């Protein structure tokens, strides 16, 4: 019987942690922050920003790294063929499919560390920023986070399809 490689298991665990928190930010925290800010008689969004968001961001950004590294480990010698989408010597349909997932995941990792995290630090007051910089940082972080949510939809399909076949 074929066994589950350890790096693939770690890839699942860290990937679920990463994308689960991505969905938490997009589907729960961002709308909740908006609702809390609009509720003038309520407790406001400060506690979410102070106690929840920083912790969620720690797991989020490091799970992204763990997911990418375990993905690289799992691909091993196939990594070149995957990133070439199977279009080089020895490439197969598997490489095209998993490669599309690998490209999407790599773009998403870039978004996390280059666009989301530096801008979230400004939004959450972890680094000094003017009111205009914070407003701009909020917009960039939101769009990058929404872009990753968008990209996660084909990403998960291609990752699964590489081993199980395309659903259509």
């Amino acid at each position, binding site marked *: 019987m074929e066994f589950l490689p350890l790096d693939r298991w770690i890839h699942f665990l860290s990937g679920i942690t990463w994308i689960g928190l991505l969905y938490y930010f*997009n*589907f729960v925290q961002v*709308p909740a922050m908006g609702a809390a800010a609009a509720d003038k008689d309520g407790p406001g969004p400060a506690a979410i920003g102070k106690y929840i968001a920083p912790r969620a961001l720690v797991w989020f950004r490091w799970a992204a790294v763990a997911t990418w590294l375990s993905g690289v480990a799992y691909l091993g010698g196939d990594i070149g063929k995957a990133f070439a*989408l*199977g*279009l080089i010597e020895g*490439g*197969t*349909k598997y*490489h*095209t*499919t998993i490669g*599309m997932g690998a490209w999407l995941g790599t773009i998403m990792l870039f978004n996390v560390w280059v666009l989301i995290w530096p801008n979230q630090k400004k939004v959450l007051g972890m680094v000094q920023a003017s009111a205009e910089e914070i407003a701009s940082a909020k917009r960039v972080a*939101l*769009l990058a986070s*929404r*872009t990753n*949510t*968008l*990209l*996660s*939809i*084909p990403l998960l*399909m*291609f990752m699964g399809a590489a081993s199980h076949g*395309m659903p*259509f």
Partner: protein
Amino acid sequence: MNPLDSIAGTIIAGVVLTGILTLIISAIAPAT
């Protein structure tokens, strides 16, 4: 309006992108 401003728009854009990338994959993938 930017579709990324709403969750529904984001999901619809993700599904559309999945379709486009699937067509590309089908066209370029080696036969085996």
